[in-house]
């Protein structure tokens, strides 16, 4: 029998207002120890899905269970308690700009534990060593490149060894080397620390390279799911268009507009 899933989302819907649903009827299960990708176009609802898992947004319908807890039954204190078992890497790192790299990584240890400073120094050194930036401990975030900042943010996110890691577009805006480094770190940290990870991304190659399973989201619905190699061979129109980056397909090239000829005729008549 398979172990109980770390994240279980059952028929979840969400919308900021009733007329524009962002997610409709989404269900997924994430097994412990796995790295799962959630892929789709910008604005398709994948970051919203991540925020629901983090307890940031409350689903309008359906149930969300994270690390065994039903999120709908938790108050703010309960969500905070649950988040201490989670880590999140933000799109651009979101490092605290008024603190050094060291203090950024030490932040949660100082806020949530009574560990003595010497022990915190050792732990921070270990975390920074894991991302290859022990030598940058005393730098300010403004002195770091985009890729380095993302690695420090990663060290900060895993500071208290979370069971579940959430990655929000971890590859955006990185050069190929940094991109490879981050991708490898996501996989090795997941496996060596015994975590479970959710990677929200639209970078096909990097994402396929590290995930065990992938869900495709389009217009707020899960349209395909499977192992990366299955997705590569998939005949589903959306997956084909997305994986190959084709201009036209189920996702049209043109934004909805009136008939082109009619539009030109009207412009001509108006002018």
């Amino acid at each position, binding site marked *: 029998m398979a172990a109980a899933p770390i994240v279980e989302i059952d028929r979840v819907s969400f919308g900021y207002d009733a007329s524009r649903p962002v997610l409709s009827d989404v269900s997924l299960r994430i097994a412990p120890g796995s790295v799962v990708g959630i892929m789709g176009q910008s604005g398709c609802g994948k970051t919203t899905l991540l925020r629901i898992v983090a307890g940031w947004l409350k689903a309008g319908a359906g149930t969300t269970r994270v690390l065994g807890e039903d999120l709908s039954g938790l108050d703010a204190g309960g969500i905070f308690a649950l988040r201490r078992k989670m880590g999140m890497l*933000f799109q651009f790192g*979101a490092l605290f700009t008024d603190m050094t790299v060291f203090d950024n990584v030490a932040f949660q240890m100082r806020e949530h534990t009574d560990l003595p400073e010497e022990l915190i120094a050792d732990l921070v050194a270990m975390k920074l060593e894991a991302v290859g930036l022990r030598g940058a401990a005393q730098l300010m975030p403004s002195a770091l490149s985009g890729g380095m900042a993302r690695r420090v943010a990663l060290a900060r996110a895993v500071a208290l060894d979370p069971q579940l890691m959430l990655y929000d577009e971890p590859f955006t805006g990185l050069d190929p080397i940094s991109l490879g480094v981050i991708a490898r770190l996501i996989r090795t940290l997941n496996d060596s620390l015994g975590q479970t990870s959710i990677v929200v991304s639209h970078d096909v190659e990097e994402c396929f390279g590290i995930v065990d399973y992938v869900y495709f989201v389009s217009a707020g619905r899960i349209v395909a799911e499977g192992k990366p190699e299955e997705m590569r061979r998939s005949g589903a129109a959306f997956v084909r268009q997305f994986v190959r980056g084709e201009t036209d397909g189920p996702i049209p090239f043109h934004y909805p507009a009136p008939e082109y000829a009619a539009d030109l005729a009207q412009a001509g008549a108006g002018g």
Partner: protein
Amino acid sequence: MAEIARLLQRLGEGATAKIWRLGYAARFFVYILLHSGTALRRFRLTVREMYFAGVQSMIIILVSGLFVGMVLGLQGYDTLQRYGSSEALGILVALSLVRELGPVVAGLLFASRAGSAITAEIGLMKATEQIAAMEMMAVDPVARVVAPRFWAGVISMPLLAALFSAMGIFGGYLVGVQLIGVDEGAFWSQMQASVDVRNDILNGVIKSVVFGIAVTWIAVFEGYDAPPTAEGVSGATTRTVVTSSLAILALDFVLTALMFTGGSAK
């Protein structure tokens, strides 16, 4: 007719939005007070913010105080000597500063120097997802970011007003006594005899505390409520300076009316 209805509707909507925002700001204020435990228990966090809000505002406060006092010396002497009472210059300078100019001008300077900085910093922390990251690490940003800045402002403001007044009196002394030649003994002794600790100094301190609360509250609220864009943060910073300046002047009138009328005025 429809035009008037639309106008009334817009007016009503505008007023409701303003009142709603005021209510939101009031709830935020209570939330800060309830979540001040960290700021007071780990007082180092507040002291650090006092350095940014208070210590770094000292230069502008001291220089402005000196010049305001020197102008008071010149203007006061010019008026007083017409009535042959130029030795009362010390009283005039001290009372003007301690009762009014100290708290008010220091408050205005504090709003534009420290208030704007607090709003911009919190607004940018929000825009760069630092506030969100903190929430994700199960740390309440109001307790960790907002409350220390709030208390730092509330503590710094009366100290800055006191420095402003002291510097102003020194400026008045420089111009009145050293430059113009008002009798030094009369300048200090009349001041000492006429400035009352409770009526004048304490009331001035109360004013500066109230201004400190108002300015810092506005600054942290605007920063925390700023839309997370460049435009949003710049708008919030402007609103902090405008709103807190108006609040200081309006509160000053109310406080002065309460403090210095009804027979207690000397």
